[in-house]
């Protein structure tokens, strides 16, 4: 991995650790192994959503061309959301694709994902089944999502 990506991730790490979101248990980043190419993220489900109370784990892979290309992010915790695949955890979010800009950071990505969880975009879905339910039966959607949160994301208590 080239120097610029590693340097950059190291600096971002410090930024997340110093950030106030960490203090509020809202987002967190951990290293996986010694290299800075693979990271583990954590997002708390935003309040007043079906995801409230859940802790969602993310797999973050930093490409060699970072920060010129976006990190590859995937939900490891199963989640019921129109823009996230209920099977693979793949995320449909513009800033993780063509709208990525080098000034964005791991912190802004995690915060954007948290915002996505609070405000889904059912017209640009990743999971068609979930999106259909979200639009046609919002109450059943909320129930399913909060059930998934309890079953898959509820066990971990933020320390």
């Amino acid at each position, binding site marked *: 991995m080239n120097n*610029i990506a590693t*340097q*950059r991730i190291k600096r971002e790490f410090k930024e997340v650790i110093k950030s106030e979101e960490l203090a509020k248990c809202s987002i967190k980043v951990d290293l996986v192994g010694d290299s800075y190419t693979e990271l583990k993220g954590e997002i708390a489900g935003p309040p007043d959503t079906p995801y409230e109370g859940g802790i969602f784990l993310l797999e973050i892979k930093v490409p060699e*061309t970072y920060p*010129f290309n976006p990190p590859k992010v995937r939900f490891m915790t199963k989640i019921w959301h129109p823009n996230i695949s209920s099977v693979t955890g793949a995320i449909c979010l513009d800033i993780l694709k063509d709208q*990525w800009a*080098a*000034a964005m950071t791991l912190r802004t990505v995690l915060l954007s994902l948290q915002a996505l969880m609070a405000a889904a975009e059912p017209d640009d879905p990743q999971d068609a089944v979930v999106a259909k339910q979200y639009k046609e039966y919002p109450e059943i959607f909320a129930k399913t999502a909060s059930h998934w949160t309890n079953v898959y994301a509820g066990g971990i208590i933020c320390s």
Partner: protein
Amino acid sequence: MPKHCWVCFGTDDDDYENNRDWVSPCKCRGSTRWVHQSCVQRWVDEKLKENLSVKAHCPQCHTQYIIVYDEVNYLVRLLNKLDKTANQLCPFLAAGVVVSTLYWSAASYGAITMMQVMGEREAITMMENTDSYMLLLVLPSIPLSLILGKTINWEETLLLFVQRFTSQLPLLRTIMPSFLCEPVNSSTSTVQFNSVVNPTTTLCAALLLPTTATVVGNLLFNNSSYSYLQKTLLGGLVYIAVKGAFRIYQRQHNVIKERTRKVIDYPETDTEGNN
């Protein structure tokens, strides 16, 4: 406020980066105002790799970067221009080479075929007496018409005709009993002439036809008083007729084979029988 690079997140406090150039290339102020010259160059390269046609701009405020180059001398400018022109012209040139190669191959094939079919001396005399522009048009059309002729599926038509009339003519019925089979009109019939039309087979068969015709003509009518051209034409006709007859025969029997197809019971084994 210390300078802070929005690409590598380095600041001008970092010791090892003391000598790097800083630039403020867009309208951004605050934390994304400054960037290293080398870092923003990498970003521009990355963007150009994705799409050459867009102008590099700031991803935050979308200001187009002002990129200047050192003035190059006249010779380099001229060479660059020549390169560009060559790159634009070459696709057309290459296409022209391919087309003219095909054309001249077709024309040569036509000339060789004429000599083969008519005999060398007659063919040369005839070509010399024909208008040269006419020749340039006629010669390449020889292989073309051979290939087009090959795509006509006359055997199919003839077979349908034979199938329809076999049952009505007693003589035919006795000599060709297998053609009593009704013409298969249903879509279940899949066996057809050239059911898989293979373009290379068509091409080879079409281009080899004159040679075959010459050989057959010479074999069959060697001692007769026909001219060279007549022998070849007769040979070609005989060859096409015989081959067509065989194909019709083959096709009819394949149709019958297809019709008599059935799935049979699985033979019971002893253990199953006992139980």
